[in-house]
């Protein structure tokens, strides 16, 4: 029982990331009818917004510290971050420590902007082109974005830590009445899961309870009719693209303490997220979220030693295997509608 709970918990953070990316992919696909292969790159850009902010906070100048001497007795030069000099040591330290969550504040406008530029500059010219062309051009864009990041940040992963307050682990088992030290779970993963739940909840309530969201949902169901009503659906769809980009970006920001950002993380997650979308059913938002968590948890179960010894290699292929089985038995995915992307 404890092992099962542990695996579910372990699967949640990856599942959260899949769900967030798949949610954005589905929003874009459902509203604009565009298959966006550059969506993983948006996730990656988000992660690097966090890296950049941390670097900015760490920008330092050299100062002679009169209280310290080196071993020759000369005054010692120390690096002092500007933020400490400007806001005092306490606030400065706090800013550096909390740079990852703070990056969210910066990531939202940055990602909205990236999203708008992408949609207005490129994607909108591809509404009427075949899906294959959309895949190809966004695939090209993904390569470009990935290489730009590689150019500026190098090829190696960059460690970006969580705030000290969340860097440890909690004994989750005790809460549930198990013995201590059975279910140990890092705080940050819990934070990530809660964060994902909030974002997903916010997106759904936005679509459910605002007029804007209602129009978008109507547009997803039947674009032509909504267009005929004289509602300018295009402008709303541009905004949706920005929103989807922001969701992916925030997912990337918060994921940095779990996975040190590298330039190819976008592609790695994109491939899996696409599988998630297909399993959930193209165009179904609840499907995307459910499939994201489902596959995350399944992957985590498959990597249990007991299961691996039963079916060797299952941990490596479980997601793809599930996708193949689902596509063959339920071509519309778990919750897909009829007629989406068929022929």
């Amino acid at each position, binding site marked *: 029982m404890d092992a099962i709970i542990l695996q579910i918990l372990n699967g949640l953070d990856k599942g959260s990331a899949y769900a967030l990316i798949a949610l954005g992919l589905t929003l874009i696909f459902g509203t604009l009818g565009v298959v966006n292969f550059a969506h993983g790159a948006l996730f990656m850009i988000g992660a690097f917004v966090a890296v950049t902010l941390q670097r900015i906070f760490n920008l330092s100048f050299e100062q002679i510290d009169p209280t310290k001497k080196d071993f020759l007795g000369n005054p010692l030069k120390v690096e002092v971050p500007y933020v400490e000099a400007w806001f005092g040591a306490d606030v400065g330290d706090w800013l550096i420590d909390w740079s990852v969550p703070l990056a969210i504040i910066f990531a939202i406008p940055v990602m909205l902007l990236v999203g708008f530029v992408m949609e207005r500059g*490129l994607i909108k010219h591809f509404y009427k082109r075949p*899906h294959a*062309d959309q895949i190809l051009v966004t695939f090209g864009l993904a390569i470009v974005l990935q290489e730009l990041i590689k150019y500026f940040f190098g090829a190696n992963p960059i460690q970006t830590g969580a705030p000290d307050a969340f860097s440890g682990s909690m004994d989750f088992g005790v809460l549930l009445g198990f013995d201590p030290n059975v279910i140990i779970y890092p705080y940050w993963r819990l934070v990530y899961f809660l964060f994902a739940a909030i974002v997903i909840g916010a997106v759904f309530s936005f679509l459910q309870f605002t007029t804007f969201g209602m129009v978008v949902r109507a547009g997803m169901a039947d674009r032509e009719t909504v267009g005929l009503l004289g509602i300018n659906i295009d402008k709303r769809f541009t905004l949706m693209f920005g929103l989807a980009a922001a969701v992916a970006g925030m997912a990337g920001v918060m994921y940095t303490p779990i996975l040190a950002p590298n330039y190819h993380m976008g592609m790695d997650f994109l491939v899996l997220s696409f599988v998630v979308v*297909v399993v959930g059913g193209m165009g179904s938002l609840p499907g995307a979220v459910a499939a994201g968590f489902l596959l995350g948890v399944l992957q985590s179960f498959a990597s249990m030693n007991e299961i691996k010894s039963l079916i060797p290699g299952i941990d490596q292929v479980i997601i793809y295997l599930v*996708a*193949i089985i689902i*596509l*063959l038995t339920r*071509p519309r995915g778990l919750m897909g509608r009829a007629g989406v992307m068929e*022929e």
Partner: protein
Amino acid sequence: MKMLGLSQRDTTFLLIVVFLTLVTPILLQPFPEGSGMATFNAGYPDLMQRFAIFGIFAIGFNILFGLTGYLSFGHAAFLGVGSYSVVWMYKLLGYNVVPGILLAVIVSALFALLIGYVSLRRSGIYFSILTLAFAQMSYNLAYSVLTPLTNGETGLQVYTNDPQVLMGENSPTSPHFFGIVMNESAKLNVGGWEFTFNNGYYFCAIVAILVFYLSLRIFRSPFGLMLRAIKTNQTRLNYTGLNSRPYTLAAFVISGMYAGLAGALMASMDPLAGAERMQWTASGEVVLMTILGGAGTLMGPILGAGFIKYFENIFSKINDNMLHQWFAWMPDGIEDFLIGLSHFFVGKSWHLTLGLLFMLVVIFLPGGLVEGGQRIAKAVRNRRSKGDGAEAQTQPAE
């Protein structure tokens, strides 16, 4: 002149391709050794082999994607299977490449039959995702549980204690074709030029010409016609009494065999096989080549493969010293600026150039380089006819 069941135009076309392929070692070496432009020479064996091998890979991919429109993101799986087959034959039998290549083609055909049979039950993006899923599964398995077959991360290679039952006393100890050793070359020095005629390149080139001829025949055959019909209107095809499934499956298997052959040739040049050959980025590469050159055209995939491999090689070699040399004649400020700007596109950042180029092609030239060439030819012809006082026709570009 008509040859080999081809029309006059196709015969001429084939002969040009044969000629170009055979003189590649000379053509790609236009600059003397040691000159400033020598960087742009591409006439060395390793690169020329890659031209031929990726050309084969792309020609095969084009039979599936170019003709039927089914976009596979998993063709790298067959490439990997081909390489592994060859190395296994080295280990068991010996360094002659023939058994390995035959095995590679057979195994990749069976593998393609299996993957194709399942994946072709769906079309559009679902087909792309299914092929991607199969290829990623193969890749992950090659790294993990299939280690006894693939030697995992180290990659499969020949060890001294391997049986190699057909190895005689005097057999070459590297891949060969009945005694013709792949990595041996003849060098020819003329003036300041040096030309390398490599056995491996010519082996690949001859195979490439053969499979190009086959693809030419397929393009002109009723089978090829049916495949093109599938791309344009599958509904009509079914209501014309034709079953599209076996046609697409046959195209999938043929293109899988081409990929297996390409993988086999990779291992024939360099007796190694690694799982990274199966990764989806390798599948993406062949997609890039085919689109860049022009999907659905005969020459497109070869052009695309050549173009990407050439610029990958040249661009990634360009370094600061060379940039300084080239821009030295400019005022300092501009020189620095240009060098700084170039950094984005050369050396390790070459993929950025590739990505941009690819986007531009998809946006402005959906027919790829071949379409670009045709447009230029048309523009030249129009200008000429204008010059003659003839009526210049403005035709909408298709």
